[in-house]
Structures are given as C-alpha cells and as structure tokens.
C-alpha cells in the first residue's frame, strides 16, 4: 500500500514538473509572439485615426546585438521615435549568442526589416546569401539621401559584395592600436617613449630588470600579451616591423603576410622577449581578462595592441591598486628600416542589412533608409550615441561629457550606442570630452596612425575558399606562430607549416584572391 502510494506520488510529481516545464515554454513563446501582435495593434489604431498625425509613422523592426546584460528601457527609443516619426521595435539579443540567433532567424526566414550583423566575420559568412539575392542592394538609392550620402566612399567600398553595396556601416577609427604604458616607470628609469622596435625591447627589458616600482624585488615584467595574434600585441608590432596587413604584393602576386620575412622578424622579436622573461611567459594561454588584470595590478608596464582609447578604463582600475601610477599612450614605433607603419581595419566594425523577406518593395526600403538618413543627423546620432542632454551627458566646449553615473549610461544608452551609423565626421555627433592626458594623446595618435596606415588589399576581395575554410586554416598558421615564438619550431619548421596551409586550401585562397585582385 505504502509502496503504491509512493509510486503514485512520484509519478504525479514528475507529471507536474513536466507540465510546468511545458507551461514555462509556452509562456515564453507567447511573450515572443506577443510583440508583433502588439505592434499591429498600434498599427490599426494609427490607421483608424489618421487625422491626429499628419503622416503615419513608419514601422520598423530592428534586430541588433546587445553588449550589456539587460535590454535598455524605452527612454531613448521614445525620443528617437518622436524625432523621426517612426514606430520602432527593437529586438535585442545578447552579443554572445548573436550568431546563433542570426543564423536561426535567417534559416527560418524571420529576419526583421533591419538586421544588424555582429562583426566582420558574420558579414563574411553572410556574403554568400547576399550574392544569392537575399538582401536589398542599396547602392543606387544612396544618392537620394543627403545624409547617408556623406558616408565615406572608401569604407563603403570595403563593405561591397561583388562591387555592389548592400549595407550601411557602423564606423570605427581606422587604426586605434598602439601602446599603453607606465609613464611613471619610464620617467623613473629615464626612458622616453620608444621611437623604434629596439627601444621598445629595451624598455621591456628595463621594466623587468631595473625594479621600476621601487620595492626592491624583481616582480615586474615589461610586456603583457594574450592569446590573440590579431588584437593582441603581435599584429601591431608586426606592422611596425613592416609586415603587410594580411596580404600584400610580392613578385607581382598577392601573398599572405606570413610568407614575408618581416613576419619572421616579429616572431623572433617576441621569442627574444619571452626568453629574456620580459613578457608574461604564459601569453599563449592568457585571456584578455587575465592580461588586463596583470597590467592593472601594476605588475606589467606595457600593454600593446589594444585600442589606445582603452586607457580610460585601464587607468581607472590601475590607480585603485597603484594610486600614483601614470599612464600614457604611444604608437609611432619605427621598424628596423626606420619607417613607421600601422595596420588599419576596414573602417567599420559592423554593418546593417535589409532582408528581402521582410522588406516587401523598394518603397518600403526607401522609408527605412529615410529613418537611417535621419539617424545620421547630429540630433539623432547624439541622442542614440550620447543619450539625452542633461540626463546622460552635458556639452562642454562643444564636446560631450558623459555623466559620472556609468550604470545609467550602461543601462539606458549603451544598447543604442552600438547601432549608430557612420562616425562623428559623417553624422556630426559630438566628440567625447577627454580629461586624461594619455587619452587626449591617444586621440591625436589615432589620427596620426592613419597617415602611415597600411590597408588590407583583400578587404573588398572575395575568395570562396577563404569564406568556407579560412578561419580553420588560419589556425594552422596561428599554432605555428606560437610554436615558433616558444622555440618549438625553427624557421624550416614554420615554413613547412606554411606549405601545409597551402596544400590544405591556402594555395586556392591565394589563387582566388589574385584572380579577384587583377580583375
């Protein structure tokens, strides 16, 4: 008897828990489907009452990645809707899982009218679908919109697919990377900002050996790097050495950067740094967080490769640990041949697409583009980038000074900030007011960098093999690069890996890029 009732209890419990689980799912779905319902609801009210509004607000659904934990409230959105006469529905999805969401929405044909991608990689993956005609071409329409027409042609060129423009871009400075270093250490040891790679090496060595923090112990290192060849120190230093930006012409043909002798020189540079103990020994396994922690705890003196604009946040954390630390930025480091060079990104960090499955005809597309045209006025771009004046920022000397309440900005503005099209030169928004001398210096250097900028000649070129296998193949080179820097591969061994890369598809990539290049 007792056994039976126990069985009954158990199974009913199970049933209950399962029912509730199903119920939970249903609720979620209901909530998800509620959104379009709600917007169509407002749609009908708008049409039944046309006298109230001179022109019916354009309804636009926008999907974009969210870099904060919570979806922002409607504070900014409501303002933007008022100014642009639109009815906006934002679908925010966490940036971490955005690719997944993008792929599944795409596979089910449920992308909204305005689809932000995540970065250049997702753009690369979409190229095939773009060529297949799944998205609207906007190039020919751009001239009808005075503000959109201001977008920089060279950056638009970098986002073209088969020579046609399908996207609007979110601009980023072309070359923000450089050195953030401990100026107080350098001053103490009587060092100047390194003018060339030799001085850079000497600085790393001095920071390690000459006890710059003056505690009598040998507990500091020069450079802190992380497990990332592109956005870590490697690529930046490599461009100072004169290595091309991904690809360059060699004997009349495009060749990948790792076939150039400067690439080997850079590897030797890091090998020497590591062997001398002038950089963190575990850099091939160090995450960005760990690298940043090492720097902000006052253990390392040189942070290379990241955006120099990060100096604000690094400084904030560093002076918590070392109150009298002083940071500065630097980027003009000459190579062994005495020349400056700086690699550049293609000028955008994300793009927007307009799926044909959601935008019915050209008339609708034009309405949406009109919204983006509005977005590129100083009024709207300031609203979306800086927030509401007086609440989120104030204007000082014609520049925006964000409020000290960082949480408020994070919560209400950040979500929209990452969707602003163009850059301040084209959309007329305020530049930021900087107070930290190192940051002001960084802004000058960002402009200076571009003068010596090296562009990636393949940015606007296409290679089918690269699209399908490039990332996987690049791993071979990245592994070989690290093994060389750790002394496990010699030059011959490295070149063997390059041959391996070629035989597994690299040769085809070279061929395809060259075919596209000479076209």
């Amino acid at each position, binding site marked *: 008897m007792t056994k039976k009732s126990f*069985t009954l209890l*158990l*199974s*009913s419990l*199970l*049933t209950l*828990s*399962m*029912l509730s689980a*199903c119920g939970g799912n249903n609720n979620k779905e209901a909530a998800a489907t509620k959104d379009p319902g709600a917007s169509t609801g407002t749609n009908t009210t708008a049409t039944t009452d046309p006298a109230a509004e001179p022109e019916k607000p354009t309804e636009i659904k926008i999907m974009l990645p969210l870099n904060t934990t919570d979806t922002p409230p409607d504070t900014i959105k409501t303002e933007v809707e008022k100014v642009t006469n639109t009815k906006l529905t934002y679908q925010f999805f966490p940036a971490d899982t955005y*690719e997944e969401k993008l*792929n599944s929405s*795409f*596979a089910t*044909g449920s992308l909204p009218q305005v689809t932000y991608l995540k970065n250049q*990689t997702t753009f690369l*993956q979409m190229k*095939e*679908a773009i060529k*297949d005609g*799944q998205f609207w071409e906007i190039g020919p329409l751009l001239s009808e919109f005075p503000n959109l027409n201001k977008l920089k042609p060279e950056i638009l060129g970098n986002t073209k697919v088969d020579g046609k423009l399908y996207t609007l871009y979110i601009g980023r400075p072309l070359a923000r990377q450089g050195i953030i270093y401990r100026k107080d250490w350098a001053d103490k040891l009587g060092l100047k900002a390194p003018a060339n790679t030799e001085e850079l090496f000497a600085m790393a060595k001095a920071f390690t050996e000459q006890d710059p923090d003056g505690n009598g112990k040998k*507990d500091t*290192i020069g450079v802190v790097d992380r*497990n990332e060849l592109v956005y870590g120190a490697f690529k930046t230093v490599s461009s100072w050495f004169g290595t091309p930006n991904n690809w360059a012409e060699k004997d009349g043909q495009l060749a990948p950067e790792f076939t150039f002798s400067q690439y080997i020189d850079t590897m030797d540079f890091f090998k020497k740094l590591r062997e001398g103990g002038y950089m*963190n*020994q*575990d850099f*091939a*396994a*160090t*995450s960005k967080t*760990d690298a940043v922690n*090492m720097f902000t705890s006052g*253990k390392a003196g040189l942070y290379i490769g990241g955006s120099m604009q990060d100096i604000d946040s690094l400084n904030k954390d560093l002076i918590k640990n070392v109150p009298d630390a002083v940071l500065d930025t630097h980027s003009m480091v000459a190579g062994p041949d005495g020349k400056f060079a700086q690699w550049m990104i293609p000028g955008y960090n994300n793009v927007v697409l307009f799926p044909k499955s959601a935008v019915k005809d050209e008339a609708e597309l034009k309405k949406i583009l009109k919204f983006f045209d509005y977005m590129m006025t100083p009024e709207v771009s300031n609203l979306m980038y800086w927030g509401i004046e007086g609440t989120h920022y104030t204007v000082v000397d014609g520049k925006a000074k964000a409020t000290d309440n960082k949480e408020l900005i994070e919560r209400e503005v950040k979500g929209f900030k990452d969707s602003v099209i163009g850059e301040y030169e084209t959309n007329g928004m305020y530049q930021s007011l900087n107070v930290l001398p190192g940051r002001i210096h960084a802004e000058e250097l960002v402009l200076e960098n571009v003068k010596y900028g090296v562009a990636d000649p393949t940015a606007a070129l296409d290679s089918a093999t690269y699209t*399908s*296998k*490039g*990332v*996987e193949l690049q*791993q071979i080179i*990245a*592994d070989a*690069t*690290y*093994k060389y820097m*750790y002394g*496990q591969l010699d030059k011959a061994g490295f070149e063997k890996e390059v041959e391996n890369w070629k035989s*597994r598809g690299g040769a085809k990539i070279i061929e395809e890029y060259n075919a596209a290049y000479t076209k």
Partner: protein
Amino acid sequence: MQEVTAPPRVVPEPQPKKYKSSSELKKRLWRNKLLYVMLIPGVLYFIIFKYLPMYGLIISFQDYKPYQGITGSEWVGMKHFSRLFTEPDFLNILANTLILFGMNILIYFPIPIILALMLNELRGTFFKRFFQTLVYLPHFMSWVIVVSISFVMVTMDGGIINELLAYFGFSKINFLLSPGWFRPMYILQVIWREAGWGTIIYLASIAAIDPGLYEASRMDGAGRLRQVWHITLPAIRGVIITLFILKIGSVLDLGFEHVYLLLNSMNREVAEIIDTYVYTAGLRQGQFSYSTAIGFFKSIVGLIMVMTVNKVSKKIGEEGVY
C-alpha cells in the same frame, strides 16, 4: 534525462502475457488509466524534443544553405562524412577524444565509488554531512571558474605552484602550454569538480542497504574492510553498472566547454577533440552540414557502445539499463 526515463520504470508494467481476449487487455488498460495518462507528457516530451529534431539530421547529407532550407538545399550524399574521415587531423582528433574518454573511465569513474565508501565509514552525522557538502560543492562552479582558478595557480607568472617549485629549488613547469601536462590537468579538474557530485547516487544506494546484514556479519567477526567488500560493494554493484553503461554512451561526448578553455596553440596536438573541432570547423565557420555530420557520427558511436556494453552486462548476469 534520468528523471524522464523514470516513469515507465516507476509504473510496474505487468509482464506482457498472452491475453485470452482483447477485452481483458482493455480492462487492464482501463483499470490503470490514470497511470497511462501520466505517461502522456513523457511520451510527448520525447516525440517533440528528441524524435522530431532528428529530422534535422537530413542536412548532414546536403550542402545546407539556411536561406534555401532543408527542402531546397542540394543533396550531396556522404560528402561530409567522407570529408571527416579523410581530414588529415581526423585520426589524431579521434585518438585524443578516446584517450580523454579512457582516462575518464579508468581514473575518474572509480573515484566517486571510493569516496562514497569512505564517506560511509565516517561516524557522526555532522562530519559526514559536512564532508559530503564540501566535496560536492565544486560541482556548482562553471568550467570557466574551475579553469581560471587553475590558471591562477599554475601560471608561470607568479602562480603559487610554480612559486613553490622555484622556492624548493626545482625549475618552473609550464603546465598551461606543455602538451604533456594537458591530460593530467584535465583529469584533475574533472575529479575536483565532479567526484563529490558523483558520490550522491552511491551514498543513496548504500543508505538503502539493510543494516541487519552488517549486524549479522559483525556477529560472524567481519571487520570493516570485509563488510565493505562482502556487503556494501555487492549491494551497489547494480548502480555501478548502470552508471557505467550510461557513461559509456557519452564516449565521444566529453563536453565542449572544459576542453575548449584549456585548449591553446601549444597543446592543440593533444587537446583538440571532436567537440572543439566541431566548434572551430562547424559553428565558427558556419558549416552546418559538416558539423551535423560529425554530431551524427558521434551519436552512432555512442549508441553502438551502449548497446554493446548493455548486452555484455546482461550476458554476465547483470541487469543493464534496458
């Protein structure tokens, strides 16, 4: 998973005898109607979440393009499977996976059993509970945290273990980057995080043993060790075998996150496993068909392994999982 498979076992079905007439069967069904109704959610769960998604396996035989859908994509037969088997690194990746799996079975698997036996010998409820809680708490930390903690401990740049080694005059060891240390680090982390959690089921089944058996054996002069050997272990043998079979089923499925966090350019030759390969080749590059084909391959291997072990266990007179 386990809870879901439970209902059919909880409801003791009468052995399918030959019924004299269908009316008798109907009567029996009707009598237990409530139990059958309770079965419905479970069955629905399996149909909706386990069987219907299998439809998606089709894409491993296609060059799947999201915008063309399953119906519109081109059929390519076994292309993706043959690509997998001819990939230069495939044998290496498979070997890495199998070695890690073997370590899981040989080194990790017995530890929760031993731990449970040891905990069971602790006298005093307070200590027993205290230690049990202590050993199973790590289970609630994510792999990111576990790996970060080990990173901080073993890094060459001031990690406590390397500092100790240096202090005692040994040379520092690059745990994080040397291929030789990857496997020991991996299995130690698995043990640290999972062993305590794994004891729970064993402890529960030990608790169910009739105390009379121990009393009787004590009368016969059996010591602690003899009791463990002749009473406790045989009593939990069924549970051990069931868990073993279930473990075998996940042969190629070691969990992506943990290995991916430990993986770096320097230890890739021993650390790249099927799961991490699927991530780099499949998901990051958007090769849906290829990664589905690999997943498919993994499931089939798992299925074959479970069926084999189950059969073997029945042959030697044990119960098996089905």
